[in-house]
């Protein structure tokens, strides 16, 4: 706990994290909240190749997230549940 806050896109595969901040743009926050990502959401990284979109796991679902978006979601690394 108490890890540093960094963009989701920097996280490596297999890591868990908690969403701390959704970057600017009301559209972005709205879209993400529809898909289940708000502050405090716990997620883990299933796939993160440099340059392409990511696959993350939120609850029991899997989401594909574009790299641009992943750089605007700030998360705090968390230890495994």
């Amino acid at each position, binding site marked *: 706990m108490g890890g540093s806050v960094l963009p989701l896109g920097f996280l490596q595969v297999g890591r*868990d994290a908690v969403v701390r901040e*959704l970057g600017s743009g*009301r*559209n*972005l*926050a*709205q*879209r*993400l*909240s*529809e*898909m*289940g990502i*708000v*502050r*405090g*959401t716990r997620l*883990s990284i*299933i*796939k993160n*190749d440099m*340059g*392409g*979109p990511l*696959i993350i*796991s*939120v*609850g*029991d*679902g*899997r*989401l*594909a*997230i*574009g790299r*641009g*978006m992943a750089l605007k979601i700030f998360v705090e690394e968390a230890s*495994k*549940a």
Partner: protein
Amino acid sequence: MEAAQAIKNEKQIVVALAGNPNSGKTTIFNSLTGAHQHVGNWPGVTVEKKEGQLVSEGKVIRVVDLPGTYSLGAYSEDEAVARDYILFEKPDVVINIIDATNLERNLYLTTQLLEMGSNLVIALNMSDELKAKQIDINAARFSELLGVPAIRTVGTRGQGTKELVAQALQAAGNKNPRVVQINYGKEVETELAALEQDILSNRQLVENFAPRWLAVKVLEGDQGVLKSLAKYPGLERLLARRAEAVKRLEGLLGEDIESLLADKRYGFIGGLAKEVMTRRQTTEERLSRSDKIDRIVTNRYLGIPIFLFAMWAIFQFTFTVGDPFIGWIETFFEWFGGVTGAWLESAGMPGLLMSLIVDGIIGGVGSVLVFIPNIFLLFFAISLLEDSGYMARAAFIMDRLMHALGLHGKSFIPLLIGFGCNVPAVMATRTLENKRDRLITILITPLMSCTARLPVYILFAGAFFTANQGLVIFSLYLLGLALAILMGMLFKRFLFKGETSHFVMELPPYRVPTLKSTFIHMWEKGSSFIRKAGTIIFAVVVLVWALSNLPVGVEYASQDSILGWIGSFVAPIFKPAGFGTWEAAVALVFGILAKEVVVGTLGVIYGAEEAGLTAAIAQAWTPLSAYAFMVMTLLYIPCAAVIGTIKRETNSWTWTAFAVAYTLVLGWLMAVLVYQFGRLLGLG
């Protein structure tokens, strides 16, 4: 008699199905309504509301399948369709279909439906998959906490649907559904109460909206809702009050209002899920089979080759399995035409009428119907692909490439649907939130090779490239795709500058599609082709036949007929492309009405010749000009139905005209390029 009258007089019960994409909504719809649907549609993307009927306990129930959405905001067109239906058409009951294996995310929509005060029945669908995931859901407790009935269902096997209907019928009688409210916290609730008071004092608003829901939406600043309020008097006061409330709350709580409300909603959802769901697996163990498949399928180096291989396999399947049928059906129509002709002659029918039936209808429509097995096989394969969950992966894989043209992966889904039919593909762009992205995708979608073009390819590839049929046709599909991407890039650069929008998309778990649902989906899509053969293709073929017999006394289907005049007038344009014959030209002209008509027209013109259609084509084309002709058919002017759809979806004649013009120029250019380069290489 009296009983029938009673049913007639009784108001029909309207049940709407709402749910997230991939929640199995369409499967439940199919299982509820069976064969009694009015409109065929395309699964994966229910782009328009689709209707069916069922009769239960002597009552007729109209079932409306709304587009799958994550929310009832109005960020994309399909969300607006779903929201407006619930809001303004006021169905008696809304069945909310929830993917039980992904409860939390699905409940977001449920909270919105609850707030709207809908008469709700919840289907906890895919409950058969819970066991494998080691999740338990207490449906009774769930139902108790929300105050609405909740039924476990397995849509693919029709389990629970009877009970669902029973509960819906019961709920329909309930005029004052209990509305569960999310508590947004003391500060927000105070402001909501004030807004609600304002709304309650406005009679027109009360008549049309659930006050509490409207208060929440106004406070949230939902653009779609505010826009639909514009016509009501007294709105300024409400907006002024909202502005004050937002200012107070954001000052007090230090957060923007949308996040405040979203946090509370997820608090509610989280609490609810905790209460009803037990999990017997850790996160680590949950790395599912789907994730393992995804490691390979979405691999950055393997992804695109696997996608191309899948496409190639589909086309091989379509041709290998379909090929024998073509021969049989061809033989059947030859025999049928011969027998009918002889019979009509012996019955003393005039020659002209006989020619209409034998050359026109049997020759023309028959030449198109020959390809039905291939079309059904292709739709079968596409349905398999959609139902398995691969479609979303294809979008994921293509995201990187689509970025190069300023779009993102989601735009790729309409393109893939375009392989089936361009009409639903253009409509599927409604799921794109960004207007620019949507317009570009609409403009490039017609370049995707739909099944209606398949008869042209099979006919020509069969006549000239027997050994490499599958490969030649595959190359046309790839050409369409490549040009779509190239044109998208050009449009983005020169017509629609601007930032790339956000890409976020659900990846549903891979599922083995059931044979039944794949067949239903294949039938839905394929049957529209048969309908088309019986209506528009039939009509055009008769028109073509008539024009080949006019002016009176002309030799049938000769250059002196009106058909010949039209063809001869257009033909010179196609000379540089290698098919400057009047027959080819007139086939392309009428092909604008529907692409199958290209074959139908040739069938009418050459049908009268003894050697048959394939032999006649082998005479009039060379392999090179045949390929150029297929390229032209692929690219030039979308068919009339697609043109109409583009007009409807863009709401602009300018963009519609642009789509027609650029595809015509592109098609002609590519056909000429193919022919001229081929000649330089000595292929002519």
